């Protein structure tokens, strides 16, 4: 048995161990009282009637706040990591941005984008009463944005102020809603009574925009900073 083979077997054993521990944990864990029932009982206080939205934007809003911060940090982080063009020309190849490649992409880019915008707005608005919300709406928005970017219809660069503002505005709106009521004696992330619905819908609207733009930025990536050696032969594997 070679050393490589022994390592693979050990790796497989590790994977089996992880799975086994997970199953064991699930089996021996005491059956906790369902937190979902707690949500149902207090749903009326949350400001919305969709339980998942109530959890995301009210009962466990802290998770969502930090999650949106992580999404923004990832979008900023990939800009910090833009390749500079040293060893591998493939890393500095321009991204697939620019003019439309096929008539199909061309046609779909323009015709689907308005419908996707409508769909994103509907998902945002529906989130308070039905399945939907900022993440679903943002994902549809990101899909429309990626379609437009790839067909060269949406100039997408972090140098544009609207893009930077749009990517960050959801986190700022959420932080404002979290900190604002503290001045009135409420706890962090405690919405004032009666205002919860309005705050959640407003924050979700901003979040839909920011999540859409951040996801689109994560998908298309960042073009390289000035390739130093543009005349180099194309990289071949």
């Amino acid at each position, binding site marked *: 048995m070679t050393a*490589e083979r022994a390592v693979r077997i050990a790796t497989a054993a590790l994977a089996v161990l*992880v799975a086994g521990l997970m199953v064991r944990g699930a089996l021996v864990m005491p059956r906790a009282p369902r937190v979902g029932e707690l949500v149902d009982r207090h749903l009326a206080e949350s400001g919305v009637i969709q339980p998942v939205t109530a959890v*995301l934007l009210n009962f466990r809003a802290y998770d969502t706040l930090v999650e949106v911060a992580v*999404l923004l940090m990832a979008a900023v982080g990939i800009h910090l990591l833009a390749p500079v063009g040293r060893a591998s020309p*493939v890393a500095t190849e321009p991204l697939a941005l620019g003019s439309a490649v096929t008539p199909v992409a061309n046609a779909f880019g323009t015709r689907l984008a308005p419908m996707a915008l409508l769909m994103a707005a509907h998902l945002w608005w529906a989130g308070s009463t039905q399945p939907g919300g900022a993440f679903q709406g943002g994902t549809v928005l990101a899909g429309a944005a990626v379609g437009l970017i790839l067909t060269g219809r949406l100039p997408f660069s972090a140098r544009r102020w609207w893009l930077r503002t749009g990517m960050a505005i959801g986190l700022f709106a959420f932080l404002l809603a979290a900190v604002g009521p503290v001045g009135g004696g409420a706890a962090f992330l405690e919405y004032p009574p009666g205002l919860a619905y309005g705050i959640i819908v407003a924050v979700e609207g901003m979040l839909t925009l920011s999540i859409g733009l951040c996801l689109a930025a994560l*998908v298309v990536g960042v073009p390289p900073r000035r390739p130093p*050696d543009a005349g180099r032969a194309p*990289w071949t594997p």
Partner: protein
Amino acid sequence: MDAVTDAAPVFAVAGVLILAIGVFGIFDRPDLLGKIVALNVAASGAFTFMIGSAPVDGEGGPDTVLQALVLTGIVISISVTAYALSLLRRVADETGRDTLDAVDDPVDPTATDEADAADTAGAPPAPGEGRR
């Protein structure tokens, strides 16, 4: 027992298996792209396990808090993947390789064109090379 309740244990078992495959891949794949894909496989397994093992409420849906946690996890997973891919692109940019083996030995940016080209040509692992 409705359909959702019946299927839940199947999802939980499938989730654990997918997680195990992903964990194996993270450590077994030599290339960074393979590790990133394996990480996503493992994450999908964890999410499937969470939803599959969640208590099912009267209307047939999994526990709403777990749904919200998994939704959060999916977005974090996307962020981590995109950031990891950017790191991989930077590693490839700096070293011409898609593994961490050569990070301590970056290509000299001041090297002449011939040396640079030769280094780059030899750098990307051929298909199958470095696998076993």
